[in-house]
């Protein structure tokens, strides 16, 4: 076997392990946080602070009976959870976790890049895979042969298509600023500090890192709202609105197949936050404290920084869920088509004008 194939296998196994343990942590964290915000205790029986509660839940789901409705479409019913899970793992492969690392083994230098694959079309890859994820919800809803899942599936396809447009459009100004579709290049374009030509401001501004969120704050807002809608989280969780649709598209799923949908939702949430951090918050960039900390810790500092930023965004996700009531269906569509898409188009034009002025100067000069 060639070396590339072995490296790829090791990488994909690490990604699988990281995402699965991460999900366990994330579900526990969400339950604890929501409980705290609602003055409850939350899970506290299994393990210290109830941290093993998710493990117990996962084992319970694995051992449960799997029921298939009589009127279900067998092939599509079995396919839907798989389609849900695969894109969520694939999206994580393009997120850069750190700079290239030089390792010396047996006198030979090896360069390990902390990214699954540095694609020159990374942004498009991310958008393409998140549009593939729509199929899982649509198919799960349709193939169950039951009315509530079908309604959930129809809602989901409309919602995800609408917010994908706003999401893609809000990313275009970021691509214009960074000048690349590759996520590795987008991160490295955010290194350094802000600079300005106005002399009074320059001493203040030079402390702020050159993250995309500062020039692109509106794009960040649009992207974050669309990201919440894209992963079907509250307040945009009409897909699985309990009061109207029982459980939405996964009403008829039980046991491990339900667990796969659940897992995919949380991995998608984590991916969205990691991608938001990569696009707008400088990704793995941050002080590595080289010389102060032992070299092995300063080598993994980039991963820690990305983790800190991602979990800060995940905290906002949970905070929004605990705070805001669900939108009505027409309000959801209006927000998407009448507010977010026009706003992102206007912002795209403004950013393009500013960039053009910076590059070529005023048209009459």
């Amino acid at each position, binding site marked *: 076997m060639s070396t590339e194939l072995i490296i790829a296998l090791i990488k994909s196994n690490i990604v699988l392990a990281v995402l699965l343990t991460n999900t366990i942590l994330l579900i526990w964290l969400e339950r604890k946080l929501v409980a705290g915000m609602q003055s409850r205790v939350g899970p506290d029986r299994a393990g210290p602070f109830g941290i093993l509660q998710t493990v117990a839940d996962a084992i319970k789901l694995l051992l449960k009976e799997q029921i298939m409705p009589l009127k279900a479409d067998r092939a599509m019913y079995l396919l839907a959870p798989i389609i849900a899970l695969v894109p969520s793992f694939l999206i994580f492969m393009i997120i850069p976790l750190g700079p290239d690392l030089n390792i010396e083994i047996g006198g030979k230098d090896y360069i390990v890049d902390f990214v699954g694959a540095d694609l020159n079309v990374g942004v498009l890859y991310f958008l393409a895979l998140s549009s593939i994820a729509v199929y899982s919800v649509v198919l799960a809803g349709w193939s169950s042969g039951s009315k509530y899942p079908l309604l959930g599936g129809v809602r989901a396809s409309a919602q995800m*298509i609408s917010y994908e447009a706003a999401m893609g459009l809000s990313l275009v100004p970021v691509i214009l600023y960074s000048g690349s579709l590759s996520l590795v290049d987008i991160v490295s374009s955010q290194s350094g500090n802000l600079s300005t030509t106005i002399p009074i401001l320059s001493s203040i501004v030079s402390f702020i890192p050159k993250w995309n969120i500062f020039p692109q704050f509106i794009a960040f807002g649009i992207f974050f709202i669309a990201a919440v809608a894209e992963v079907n989280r509250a307040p945009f969780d009409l897909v699985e609105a309990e009061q109207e649709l029982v459980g939405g598209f996964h009403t008829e799923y039980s046991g491990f197949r339900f667990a796969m949908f659940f897992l995919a939702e949380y991995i998608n949430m984590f991916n969205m936050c990691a991608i938001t951090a990569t696009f707008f918050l400088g990704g793995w960039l941050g002080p590595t404290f080289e010389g102060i900390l032992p070299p092995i810790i300063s080598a993994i500092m980039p991963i820690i920084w990305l983790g800190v930023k991602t979990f800060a965004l995940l905290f906002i996700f949970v905070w929004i869920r605990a705070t805001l009531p669900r939108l009505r269906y027409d309000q959801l569509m209006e927000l998407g088509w009448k507010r977010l898409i026009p706003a992102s188009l206007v912002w795209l034009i403004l950013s393009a004008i500013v960039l053009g002025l910076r590059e070529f100067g005023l048209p009459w000069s």
Partner: protein
Amino acid sequence: MVEALLFFAPASLIIIGALIVIFAKNPVHNAMGLVMTLVSLAIIYITLNATFVAMVQMLVYAGAVMTLFLFVIMMIGVDKKEQTTDSIKGQTFLVSGVFLILISLLAYVAISSDFKWDLWFPPVEFDAEGTPQLIAGALFTEWIFPFEIISLLLIVATAAAIALAYDTKKRNSNA
């Protein structure tokens, strides 16, 4: 070995998907067969280093167009079994006749032009005509006029579709 696998696996998936599109009785299965064909085709584009084309294929065809197909199939409820009787008399014979003619034409061309099985895979550094920079460079300099004309055409088509679908009477009675 790996190269051959990377070609034959998606290629056979394309053919299986196409067969599902034709022979499956349920419209949703047909649509999913088409999705399978489109995604496998994207994999073939990637092996040819045309990553941009591959991603656009996934994003536009597999992502947007087919989701709308499925949406329409589910909304208007044609997801019942399709009728198998001929709507045009003798259509089965006609179609199989045309199919045979086309296949024999293809076979004739393949034999007469010394066609050889030669799987060609570009090296890693190879810049295919599918990278974003090359496509953008060609599209926004050399082909800018046709590009703008097509975008105008699309806007006209969208506006016309809205104008045709917009029911003024219904809208007024609701208000």
